[in-house]
Structures are given as C-alpha cells and as structure tokens.
C-alpha cells in the first residue's frame, strides 16, 4: 500500500461531513505538502509553469540555510569563548543546536498553529509564507531570548502583522520584523545591551551559573558587545567571517552573501533592492562620516549588525517591498539610508535596520503609487505625441 492510497483512504474523514472536518485545512496542508494536487486548469492558460509558492518559499529557506548553519556554530563558539571552554567542533555545534532548535520549534509551532487555524476559519488553503517567517525569526533574535517571549511575539506578529490583513500576500509589514519589533519594545532588557548576544551570559550574570559552562566563570576582559556598540573591539576579518556576538543569523557576511547569491540567481528576491540598499547605506555612511566625528568608515556599516541580513532577506520580502521595478530602487535605497541614519544619529538605538525596513514597508505602497502615476503620465504624453 503506497502513501497515496493511505492518504486517499483517510481523506473523507477530513472532508465536509467527516468527523475531523474541522481539521480540513491542516489535512490539506499536509496532503499538498506531500503531493502536488491533481487539480487541472479549466480555461485560460491550459498549461502552467511548474513553479508554485511552495517552490519559491523553499528556495527562500534554502538561501537562509548557510546563515542558519553558521549561526548555530557561532552560538557555541561565542559561548565557548566567553567561558574559556576548550571545545571541539562537535561540542560547539551541539551547544548551538541545543540553543537554536527550541527557538525554531517555538516559532514554527506557534506560528503555524495560528496559520492553520486562520486558514480553517477562512476556508483557505494554508499559505507557505510562514515557512520562511518562522525560519527567519530565530535568526534575528538574541540566542537567549526566553521562549515564552518569542511565542508571544510570534503570535502577535502572525495575528496583528499578517492575518488581520488577510494572510500572506495581503500584509504590508514583514511579519518577522513585527515580531522582532514587538520583542524590542516590550522586553528591551532581553533584546539589547552587552549581555544578551552570547549564550548563557545573562543567566550567568543573574544566577552565577549557566548551562554548559564547565564550572568556568566568564573570561577576563569579556565584553559581549556587538560591533555596533563597540566598533573597535573586532577585526574586519572577524566581522566578515562572522565570529562576533550578535543575533543568531546576522553575523556572517559570507553566509549571507551565499544566501544572496541563491536568491538573486533564482530570481526569488530582487537584486535591485539589495544593491540599492547597500548603495543607500554607503552614501549615508560616507556623508555621515563627514558630520559625525567618531563614525566608522562607511563600508563598515555593511558588515556590522543586521544591515546585510536585513538587506538580503528582509527588505526583499516580495509582499512588503515595493512592487514596481523603479520603486524597488527607491525603496531599497531608503532602507539602507535610513538604517545608517538611525545608527549614526540616534544614540538610543544601536541598530537601525529593523526600524528602517518597517518604516519603508509602510511607505512602499506610496512609492509604488508615485512611480505608477509618473509612468502613466509619461505614457499619456507619448500617446499624445504619436496621435
């Protein structure tokens, strides 16, 4: 008996009138996960491209994998460094996995639970968009964020950031960033400062003990500050490789660029937004360097904090970014520019990427509106000339 037969056999239970009809959307999600449905076109284009949203989303997840893997290793590496542990590669990775898997599980269980429920209420199919959101979210928070906070933030983001607007495709803020903003403003002590970025440090400071410290105390001269707070504390090579404290997935420039290469080649994310964002960051960093006396060189903004991660994976979210091609240049440029402006001129926030992207998400429809109006006016002029 093959898998298909089993699915066909239990299917009626989940259909209208069946005992478990209230789980219809859930069943459907799992069925379509395993089998591309047998639906055929009715009219219009009789043949269709074999790319679907599942494929687009899985490519997005694939692009995040390098950052995820490096982040997992770096959690262990930072912890081992902080407590002076002489760990081998597998111990480092093991600690990283123990720390990151709960984050992933919490975001997926809470987020997908809400997605399934709202799909059932609406009678829709479950949208795959959350597979990406749920994978990004653990990568943009400090490793020691309490799981219940993450759960609350995830629920807030999925419900208020997405489902109230109608689900994936209808939301206008990036849901993962809504979750992060929620955490940032609700629990600032867990989201910023010098003690949250390395696993176990905060707990050690509070209780005098932490998981897997081997009985060691923090090593002398341990700072735990990210490069944004302490620009001179890390070498450029460290920042490019990513062996620095920070949110889980944001540290390694190399891993993020690998992801960017996948996204750009497959066309899943817009290279225009990425390039424009980097250009915006560079320009403001350069201009700011002339005004602000202790500013880092402008290019260094690109490799610090979440700038690159945000530019590559979050500003490019096709739903919340600008939709028009010209609009993408403007949107991306402003994301990069605003992020660096916040970094340079607002002492309250060391990192500006989250706020920059959320702000530009809000303005993306306005940018598109202006671009379209201009284009239509140009067309009308051209048509008048031809006529």
């Amino acid at each position, binding site marked *: 008996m093959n898998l298909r037969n089993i699915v066909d056999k239990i299917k009626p239970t989940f259909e209208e009138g069946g005992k478990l009809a209230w789980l219809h959307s859930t069943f459907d999600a799992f069925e379509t996960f395993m089998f591309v449905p047998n639906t055929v076109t009715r009219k219009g284009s009789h043949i269709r491209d074999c790319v679907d949203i599942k494929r*687009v989303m899985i490519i997005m997840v694939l692009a995040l994998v390098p950052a995820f893997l490096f982040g997992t290793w770096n959690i262990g590496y930072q912890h081992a460094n902080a407590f002076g542990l002489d760990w081998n590669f597998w111990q480092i990775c093991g600690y990283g996995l123990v720390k990151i898997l709960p984050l992933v599980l919490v975001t997926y269980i809470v987020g997908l639970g809400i997605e399934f429920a709202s799909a059932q209420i609406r009678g829709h199919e479950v949208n795959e968009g959350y597979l990406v959101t749920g994978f990004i979210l653990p990568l943009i928070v400090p490793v020691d964020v309490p799981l219940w906070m993450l759960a609350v933030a995830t629920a807030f983001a999925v419900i208020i950031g997405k489902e109230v607007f109608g689900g994936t495709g209808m939301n206008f803020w990036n849901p993962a960033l809504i979750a992060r903003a929620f955490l940032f403003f609700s629990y600032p002590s867990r989201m910023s400062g010098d003690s949250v970025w390395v696993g176990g440090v905060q707990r050690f400071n509070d209780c005098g003990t932490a998981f897997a410290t081997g009985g060691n105390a923090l090593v002398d001269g341990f700072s735990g500050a990210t490069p944004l707070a302490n620009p001179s504390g890390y070498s450029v090579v460290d920042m490019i490789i990513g062996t620095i404290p920070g949110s889980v997935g944001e540290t390694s420039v190399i891993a993020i660029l690998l992801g960017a290469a996948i996204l750009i080649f497959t066309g899943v994310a817009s290279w225009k937004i990425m390039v424009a964002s980097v250009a915006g960051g560079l320009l403001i960093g350069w201009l700011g360097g002339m005004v602000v006396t202790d500013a880092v060189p402008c290019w260094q903004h690109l490799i610090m904090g979440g700038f690159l991660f945000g530019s590559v994976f979050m500003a490019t979210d096709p739903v919340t970014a600008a939709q028009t091609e010209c609009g993408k240049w403007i949107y991306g440029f402003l994301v990069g520019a605003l992020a660096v402006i916040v970094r340079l001129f607002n002492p309250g926030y060391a990192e500006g990427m989250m706020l920059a992207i959320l702000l530009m998400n809000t303005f993306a429809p306005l940018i598109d509106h202006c671009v379209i109006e201009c284009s239509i006016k140009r067309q009308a002029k*051209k048509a008048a000339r031809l006529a």
Partner: protein
Amino acid sequence: MSNKIQLKHGLDIPISGMADKVTKKVMIPGTVVIKPSDFRGLKARLLVKEGDTVLAGSPVLAAKENPDILFTSPVSGVVTEVVRGEKRKLLEVRVKADSQSKSVDFGAQKVETLDAEAVKALLMKSGLWACLIQRPYGVVADPQTAPKGIFVSAFATAPLAADVEFALKGQEHAIQAAVTALGKIAPVHMSFNAKVKSAFERIQGINAHYFEGPHPAGNVGVQIHHISPIQKGQTAWTVTMHELAAIGKLLLTGKVDLSRKVAVCGPMAIEPCYIEAVPGIRMDELKAFYGTTGEQVRFVSGDCLSGENVTISGATGFHANQITLLKEGNEYEAFGWANPFRFKLFSSSHTYFHWLLKWLCPEKKYDLDTNLHGGERAFVVSDVYGKVLPMNLFPVYLVKACLAGEIEKMEKFGIYEVLEEDFALCEYVCPSKIDIQSIISSGIDLMIKEMA
C-alpha cells in the same frame, strides 16, 4: 526596416507537438457548428429553424443591436439542431454539411472601385464582418465607429501556432484585395516578424511594422500598444491573416469561403500536421489525431495559452486556425515542489534547472499537461509578470483593479489596450496560480456593461 520594434519581455514555451508543414487531409465535415459565444457581447437573433437548408454564406444569426450584421453558415447543408441552454440561451446551431458545398453568390467585385460603405455592406451581408474585432474589449466591430486603424499581425508567436507563411501560401492576391478594400475604411497596419522574410511584405497599401522578440510579440494587442496605443474614446479594429484571406476570396470570387489550414498540434496529437477545414468543425471528427477514446485529452480550440477548452463534443471557434490537444494532468505528483529537477515538466523560473537544460539541448520540447502544479494563493511574487508582458502596463495593478471592479482604476491601468490573450503568459508563469485571464475577462465584461 526603419520601424523595427524590439521586444525584450516574453517567453517561448518549448511545448512538444509542433504541426508538420504538410496538409494531410481535407476535412469534409459531417456537422458544422455556429456558436454565438465565439463573438464577445453578441446578442444573437436566430434566422433559421431546424430543417432549413442553407448555403455557404446564408445568414444564420443576426446581431440584435445591429440587424445588418449577419453571421452566416460556412458550408451548405441542412440545419439539424438548434441547441439552447438555460433560459433558452442560444448555444449552438448545427448544420449538417452537404458533400459538395454550394455558395451564395455575392458577385465578384472590382475592389478598386468600391467605397467604404460598399465594403462594409458586403462584409455584413456575407457574414465576414464578424472577422473584424474591435478594441477595446474585443467585440465584433461596430460599423458606425471610425477606427483609427485596422491592425493585422502577419506572424504568430503563440505556442505551436499555425505558420502564417505556410498556411496562406499562394493567397497573396486575396489578401491584397482584402487589404485594399479594408483600406477604404481605415489605414491598415500590418506587423511582420523582423527575423523572417515574409511573402506578404509586398502587399501594397499597408503601414508595415517589424517586431522582434519572444511570444507575445505576435499578439496584435501588443503590437498596437507599440504602434499606436488605444486611448480612452479611441477604437482600433483587428483581423487575422486567414480571415483577411477569406475576405479577399469573397471580393475576388463573390463566394464565402472560410476554409483555412488549421494546425492540429500538441503533445497528445498523433502525427500533428495541418488540415484544411472550415470553422466550427467538431472535435470528435478528429479521431485520426487523438486515437480512439479521447479520454485524458484536453481539446483546445486555439493555442494552449489562450484557446478555448471545448471538450470532445465541442467544436472549433470561428476565428481559430489551431487545435491543440493536451494531456489532462489530473494526477498527483509526490513531493513535486521539492524535487530539484522535474525535467518532465517545464519552468521558466530559475528555481528549477530548465535553464541549464535549455542551454545544453536547446531543441528539447516538453509534453506539458493541464495540471495546475500547485494551489491557488494570493499575489506574492511581484516581478514575474512584467517579464513576460512586453507592454508598459502594471499587470498586477490592473488585475487587482479588475478584481475590485473599480472602473476608474481599470481605465488608468490600461484596460482599453488589453484582451485576455495578452495576459496569457502572466497566467502561465504565475506561481500563485491565479486565473488572470478570467479576471481580466470579467473586468472587460464589467467595462462593456458600465460604459455602454
């Protein structure tokens, strides 16, 4: 080639089953079907009853709003059946064809001496007026309007489309006569493929334009957009090459002869080739092409992107010169979306490796079926549509305006310039599997209703 227009956006889908350039057999149709639904917005009045005998060119239907516009039988025979649907809506008029077709004689014309009104009157009474399609909206042309031009695409880029040069070989005379006659009504614009030398470039009295690029460069709507975009209040007429030939034959011989070379093609077609046929032939008379039962076959009158799904008991449309036979893809595919390759299917997206395959063996064709390959979702990806639409439009915005039924926005985003077929590729590539053509269609219907 002074006025060459290069189009970058578009997509040529490598589907298998291209028709060989031979005419295997002449179709002597048993029954020919005349369908009012082939003409958008037509409210038809029936002029015949069951048992009447008709000749090729005898009126069968008339337009209620303009009774001068007649729709005539393409063959001679006996009206066997008038098929009606719900609320007695007229669906089909079936004519059993005689073995030898006899025609009404409209009299051969001296084309040079005709004036616009005479041309219009002749076309309306012979039934060939229905060949003229009016944009915006794609309705049968209104003889009272003054179009800014009559546009003809002299090449086809749609998947497996009938080759104009082959199908109309030797009909230059007829087409010349038709162009001369239609030229009395409005200037005739003819668009050619810049890469192929056409036998029809020699035709006198046309404004020639040259286009280069992938499908939909051969769509007349795309061409009009680049030659002279349709503004609010303007109209343009279009006509296909094979219907120009029919108009020409009417002018030269006085007889209605709608026979044309029809490409029978597609992955399910056995030995795909051309047949000589009139419009309205029934699919079940094509047994030689689909085998015995016709199960698991999708019968499409037209091309696989924007043709009509007519089923085995249906008939080809009035304008069609192509029949595409596709495989019904009503099968499950385990973990299809996660399969890295899926080489039996085709994707233009780089999320698969078909680009590599295209590079390695450029001639590879795919047996594409009718599976949707996914579930319907909201619009997520924004930049795939513009890549296959060589028009300065914002496709997603227009589609959303149509969904919302907002007339002003539809106007703004270019509803006057488009027909469903122009969006066929957008629908093909859409990863959210949205029925874009249906949405555009309902938008156009709404415009017709509201702007009337």
